[in-house]
């Protein structure tokens, strides 16, 4: 008997442990994996656009990735490559009183779950942008699913038209727009940056403009110019050339090719930007507010059709001066458009002043709209030609 007692106590313990383990394992099934979604049930959105409809409603248009294209059945063989004749994406839209409402309407017509996780492009139609951006931006920043790092664009015309384009080179439209923005010849603005600019002291923002370009039979999207946003609305556009000036002043320029004509010579000299840095220095003297913009750039010469000998430092000095003039002109063009005409502080002078003169700025922060157009901007460009290229003088040209 003694022996049997010794045997059964651990047995009971074992049973209890096993039961506990079994009960614990049941909790896994209770969860029901509520947020587990198979890829097969996802409607993967690659790009989304927002428009204003005729009856003042918000229309949401999404570019869905089509997972089942023809020719995909046999995956062992060559699967249908991108750019095949079959469309890779599907455009769907729905409208509602605001974005959340429109989105729920959109979900109603889609058999799969709308998945924002891979959406990298948001396009605002110009009409919507001109009415207000605050409502859609609240949705994009508040809703947890859309990505803050997605790129934002404003389309000339409706966003839907842009989303309908079938790009010939890339796999989908979002890819095209993202790569275009990334090349840094134009602006590259994400949802987060836009929200920061709109909520910042200047309450002005810039968004790249997308335009549809027709080349022979193919329609492609291009980034052309900038939409200027002030107080939550788009108030105007800037063309390509002025946009370059904006980039220089915002210290966002990464790639640029500048071509100048020397005064006393025939032909052109082209520079390629290696590195650039723009520094804004604010001054307040009495009532006069001014800013010095100092642009330091390093450039290479990539083409020279003049007879100038580029190995001669005297000559390159003069070229540098010429280049400086060109840069100042570009920047001034952008400044005039933004500061004098649209009165939108897209260069964020407000922050620059606030950082150095917080007291003074606080006194005038309600009147910033009046002061901003009066701010005197002195642009100084200091180009530095580092390399004349592989050849010195143009040796094909006889003079």
């Amino acid at each position, binding site marked *: 008997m003694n022996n049997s007692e010794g045997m059964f106590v651990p047995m009971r313990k074992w049973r209890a442990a096993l039961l506990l383990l079994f009960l614990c394992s049941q909790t*896994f099934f209770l*969860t029901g*994996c509520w*947020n*587990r*979604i*198979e*890829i*097969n049930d*996802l409607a*993967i959105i*690659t790009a989304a656009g927002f428009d204003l409809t005729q009856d003042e409603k918000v229309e949401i248009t999404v570019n869905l*990735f089509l*997972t*089942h*294209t023809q020719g*995909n*059945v*046999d*995956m*062992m063989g060559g*699967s249908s490559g991108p750019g095949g004749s079959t469309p890779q994406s599907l455009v769907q839209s729905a409208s509602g009183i605001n974005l959340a409402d429109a989105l729920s309407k959109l979900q109603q017509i889609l058999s799969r779950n709308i*998945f*924002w*996780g*891979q959406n*990298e492009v948001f396009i605002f139609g110009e009409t919507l942008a001109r009415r207000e951006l605050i409502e859609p931006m609240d949705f994009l920043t508040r809703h947890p699913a859309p*990505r803050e790092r997605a790129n934002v664009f404003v389309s000339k015309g409706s966003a839907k038209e842009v989303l309908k384009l079938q790009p010939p080179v890339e*796999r989908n439209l*979002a*890819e095209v727009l993202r790569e275009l923005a990334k090349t840094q010849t134009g602006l590259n603005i994400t949802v987060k940056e836009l929200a920061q600019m709109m909520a910042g002291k200047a309450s002005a923002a810039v968004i790249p403009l997308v335009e549809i370009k027709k080349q022979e039979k193919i329609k492609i999207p291009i980034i052309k110019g900038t939409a200027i946003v002030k107080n939550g609305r788009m108030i105007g556009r800037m063309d390509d050339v002025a946009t370059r000036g904006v980039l220089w002043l915002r210290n966002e320029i990464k790639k640029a090719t500048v071509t100048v004509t020397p005064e006393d010579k025939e032909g052109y000299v082209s520079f390629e930007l290696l590195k650039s840095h723009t520094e804004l220095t604010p001054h307040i003297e009495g009532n006069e507010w001014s800013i010095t913009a100092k642009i330091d750039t390093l450039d290479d010469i990539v083409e020279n059709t003049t007879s100038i000998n580029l190995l001669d430092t005297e000559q390159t000095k003069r070229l540098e001066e010429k280049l400086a003039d060109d840069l100042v002109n570009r920047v001034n063009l952008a400044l005039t458009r933004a500061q004098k005409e649209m009165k939108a502080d897209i260069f964020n002078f407000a922050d620059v002043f606030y950082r150095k003169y917080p007291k003074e700025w606080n006194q005038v922060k309600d009147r910033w709209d009046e002061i901003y157009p009066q701010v005197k901007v002195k642009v100084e460009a200091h180009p530095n030609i580092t390399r004349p290229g592989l050849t010195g003088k143009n040796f094909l040209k006889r003079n």
Partner: protein
Amino acid sequence: MVDRRKGWHRLTRSNRQKSSNANPANMPSFDQTPLAKSLAENLQMLQSLYADCADVVFHDFLIGEQTKAVLIYTDGLTNVEEVDQHVLAPLQQSLELQHTIPNIRNMISVLSIKLMRTIGDAVTEISNGNPVLLVDQESQGLSFGLSKWQKRSIEEPTAESVVRGPREGFIETLATNTSLLRQKIKGPHLKIKSMRIGRYSNTPVAVAYMDGIADPALIEEVMNRLQRIQIDGVLSDAAIEELIEDNPFSPFPQLLSTERPDVACGYLLEGHVVILVDGTPSALIAPVTFFSLLQSPDDYTDRYFIGTATRWLRYLFLFVSLLGPSLYVAVVSFHQEMLPTTLLLTLARSREQVPFPALVEALLMETMFEALREAGARLPKQIGSAVSIVGALVIGQAAISAGIASAPMVMVVAITGIASFMAPRFTAGIAVRLLRFPMMFLASFLGLLGVILGVTVILTHLLTLRSFGVPYMEPLAPLQVRGLKDVLIRAPRWALRTRPHLTGEWNKYREAPGQRPSPEKGDEGE
């Protein structure tokens, strides 16, 4: 049932009493019976023990045509020609009158002669194949080391092949195995203790260690654990391993089994204890750490850069083999936003035809893979390759084109499979391979959170695990900075000056300082 258990208990009790004596072997009760003066009595005892044992031969003869004697040997285990020539012949032709044991001992030209006092001694000697001589009117017997049995020749170990280094492996014979150790470590510091385990099998077991390097407490612990074992037979070292390990419920091996004498000697010199079991072509090494299961002899024969790189690759693929499918399942069913867009689109496209959830798909393919591996392992080599062709080519490809599994899944499974084969110790690889399945479930229930939970549980288990008192994750946890040079990297030989902590603290240095080869300094000027 009850009776048998009682009998067993009686046995264990009697053995416990005995284990306090010098001889710990678990012999049945005749063990300590002293040999009687009368030959007939002894013979009767032995013949009743060896009744119905056709292979045990009792050969009676007269020494010098007057004293009765019996020679007992096991047929097939004894070198009969030698017995004839060196035992029988001199005894029968003996001219001496006094046939006492010391006299007989002097007559016989055999090197290994042992004196026996009990029936138990005689039984042991007979079992080992040593012929036993019992003489009338003597309460002692003699045994001669003239055993000779079939054994395999020393071959290259099949499960642990190396590119460079010794090619010999342990075989099934204990004496050969201990001799292989002695061949490599020639000094008297190599100690080999022997014992017998198994109520019926009486399997010889040897415990080897380096005197002055190994911790005496460790040796004692190993001996104690071995002496605790009371089973009927030991047919492989796996039985010993399961009976002496620290945590019997862990999937991770706490003793390392190696087929290579050079590996065993390497561990001996680091202060580990090596357990050799007769009948098993491998040695058990204790204690081990998790990292020693991930080391291969080639790490030390390759250049140390390459050794380090291979080690890192192995660590990386250890994670792959544990987490590969579960990470895939987690990302595909919970965190689709984590993938680069292009990758997700490709995945989505290839998964479009698959009718199952990611978990089912993963389980299906993983189980299939395990089945293939098992089938391949059990089949003869010639057919094994056919299995792999059918498995890999036919099933893998067909599953994709039939739309049962997606191509990325098959790839994940294949990579995981290769990763699990990368563990140099099969037992470590198989532990990780098993843990992959619960991880997959966790991943599909809770996503990456589940994966992290699973990893935490495994890590906690590994951190609490000990092998003969040595923490399993040593030297990483508890951190021993000195030990890291042979774990995180494979430092060059001249930098491996110290032995691993805890197994060699009292004989810390294994190299004299300044072993790094360099030109002699100060010679140029003279």
